[in-house]
């Protein structure tokens, strides 16, 4: 996998690649995004699109635990493309700024990216240029806010704050 990763990264002109726990991640720039996917599809037989999604890296989080060490605040966009013969999978990764995140759409390369990008757009507020139908897919039409951003709080957690380090509750008689 390491060899394939190196080959692929070189072919698309990636800035770096990692193979961690069996997952190959190739970092590309915003401008190389569509070109990298095209190279993957045409030259490396990676015709299968698994998914397109994003990670919100933030240091202040409204829900859950904050990262241990400070991270660079950004959206990390991921696209997993693979082949259907040997099961190789490449995660293309690119960084987007949190405000005004916008990148070219992958629907011309993979039609299946259509729905995945709609979901990423409504959950993270990422604009995909050239997308044929960037409407909400899961959320109702009038929904305000972008749920998967780390700054989006959950009402239940505001009412009842996170209990902290509790993993296993005792049996009913234990609290005496």
């Amino acid at each position, binding site marked *: 996998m390491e060899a394939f990763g190196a080959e692929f990264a070189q072919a698309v002109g990636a800035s770096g690649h990692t193979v961690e726990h069996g997952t190959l991640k190739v970092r590309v720039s915003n401008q190389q995004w569509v070109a990298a996917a095209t190279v993957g599809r045409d030259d490396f037989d990676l015709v299968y699109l698994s998914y397109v999604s994003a990670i919100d890296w933030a240091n202040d989080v409204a829900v859950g635990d904050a990262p241990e060490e400070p991270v660079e605040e950004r959206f990390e966009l991921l696209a997993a493309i693979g082949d259907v013969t040997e099961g190789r999978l490449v995660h293309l990764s690119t960084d987007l700024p949190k405000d005004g995140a916008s990148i070219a759409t992958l629907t011309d390369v993979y039609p299946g990216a259509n729905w995945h990008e709609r979901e990423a757009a409504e959950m993270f507020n990422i604009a995909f240029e050239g997308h044929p139908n960037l409407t909400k897919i899961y959320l109702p039409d009038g929904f305000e806010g972008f749920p998967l951003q780390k700054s989006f709080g959950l009402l239940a957690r505001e009412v009842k704050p996170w209990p902290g380090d509790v993993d296993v509750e005792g*049996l009913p008689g234990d609290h005496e």
Partner: protein
Amino acid sequence: MTDQDFMHHLGDVSVSIELETEDMTLNIGPQHPSTHGVLRLVAKVDGEIITDVEPVLGYMHRGYEKISEVRTYPQVTALVNRIDWVSGYANEIPFIVAAEKLMGVEAPERAQYIRVILTEMARLASHLAFMGSFPLELGATTPLMYAFRDRERILDLIESVTGGRFHPNFNRIGGVKSNAGAGKTQKKASQDLPAGFFTETLAAMDVVDASCDEMETLVGGNEIFLIRSKGVGVLPADIAVSYGVSGPILRASGVEFDLRKTEDYLPYDQFDFDIPTGENGDSYDRWYVRLQEIRQSARIIRQAIEGIPSGPLRAKVPLIIKVPKGEAYVRAENPKGEMGYYLVSEGGQGPYRLKIRSSSFSNLSILPWILEGVLLPDLLAVMGSLDFVLGDVDR
């Protein structure tokens, strides 16, 4: 104008009347007997031919990815069962394996074999549910009863081991749940599988095989079933792949690709099984591929029971689990297709970000493509053959 002129001109007039019919917009769902859950399809229908179909999703969106950011790993395990509820156990596996990879823990062999057995049973449960519901959509009500009767046996077996029929919640990081029934008041003996489980399972596999043969002749030999499903909803392989379709649908379109053979999340390389594929990619092939997969799953279960080693059920992990920093994507061959979890851990008790790649979401995205120009009754034949579950689509 004189009468003569008028009559003369009348001959020149050519009258062409075309019946002006408008396309009717038909709203199928969300409450509808045969969409597999709350799915809404806005279909533009011209007579009986569908010109355009737009699925409206989100009626069952439960926000799994957000919720898993505020839950610990065991809690997420319990939640994740409910994504594809027809095959409960199979949903947990990729998540647990991802967490185990990040922790550097490997489940003992016995636990892995038990995981294989239960995953294949989940596959049987899902495919048998399909065997029952697909003919039902075409109008045959009897196979439903036969398929669910056999499915009950499988669910009873799963329940005898895990305690739950649909939502087993049996995996733990490091293995499978071992202290079944033990608590503070009982001796902390590690309880293994229930007595008689193996013999009952082997008997159930014989029943399942017999049921497969019966289905093949009763349903597969039924002339009306054949003309309703052959050639209906053909999906070429290259379209399927570019849309991200996976699982039995992809295999029915002729692509021989099974994640059980290419991934190492469970020890499938120890077992001998075939990958059934179809030729045409129509609804009949999708049905037939799943029928064959039932047989192959029974084969795997038999081999697993035969070769299961003894040993501990769970590796040593601390009581409060904190997964070290890292990212991993693990994907598994779920009954419906590829299910994967991209787990980002920042060293906390719960995931920092969990991306759930569910199979039915991608499988459903071909619906606008595949349904163009199809007759209205075939809409249900095609949708039924795709075998999706709304929990999987909407997460």
